């Protein structure tokens, strides 16, 4: 049983790394800065969550586990705020997103 949980943890860590790489590929492939922010920020928080969960499953409860959870909480707090700051700064300095529907007005308010 314990071994099975350890294996699940290992799979989750690998999945986290895979997600990270996929996010990086997305950051390279996506057309504009806004879509790239999606790829980077969402896969970063996802990878952090999967990795935290995976490592917890592998090692169980310990002082290191508590610190790991704190790292995770900090990433979940700071990552969306940073992504928002970036998107807002890009928008505020006049970069307009590539939109699927060209008729949609790119709002100029704040």
């Amino acid at each position, binding site marked *: 049983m314990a071994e099975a949980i350890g294996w699940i943890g290992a799979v989750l860590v690998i999945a986290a790394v895979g*997600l990270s790489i*996929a*996010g990086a*590929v*997305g950051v390279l*492939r*996506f*057309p*504009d800065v*806004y*879509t790239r*922010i*999606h*790829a980077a*920020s*969402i*896969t970063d*928080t*996802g990878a952090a*969550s999967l990795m935290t969960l995976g490592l917890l499953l592998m090692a169980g409860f310990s*002082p290191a586990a*508590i*610190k790991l959870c*704190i790292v995770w909480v900090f990433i*979940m707090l700071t990552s*969306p*705020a940073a*992504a*928002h700051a970036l*998107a*807002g700064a*890009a*928008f*505020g300095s006049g970069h307009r*997103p*590539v*939109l*699927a*529907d060209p008729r*949609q007005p*790119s*709002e100029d*308010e*704040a």
Partner: protein
Amino acid sequence: MIYVPGLFIALIALWLALSGHGEAFMVGLAVVSVILSILLTMCLGLMGREASPYHRLVPMARYAVWLMGEIVKSNVAVLRTIIEPSARLRPRLAALDADGRSELATALFANSITLTPGTVTIEAARDGLLVHSLHDGADEQDEFAPMAARSLMAADGRG
């Protein structure tokens, strides 16, 4: 100044979780450090609802659990977009109402949007949000309604 005890308890708990040293000397250091941190926070003029939202920890935690589910969906959605051809990418902007919310609730809502299915908050103000999303949805207000209600409930205690 009802926020000071909340912040005190939260910071002490954080210290003990980080430290793992329970001897009297270290606990004394913890108390001194927490008091110094709180004094610095007050000196910088930050003490208040946002610095110490810990009295809302239980509703926030409940909200966080719900949000986790949404985040899983968001990763699946974004992954599919990365793997499949870029034809699936249909970015658009949406303006949302956020009237009558506290700063904390607006920030929680905006950050939740950033964390979930292919959406990033570009601008956040007290009266509304501007959201960039990767996919066309039906009606934006409806799409975000559950999150808006839940985050408002978690941060402000009303729905």
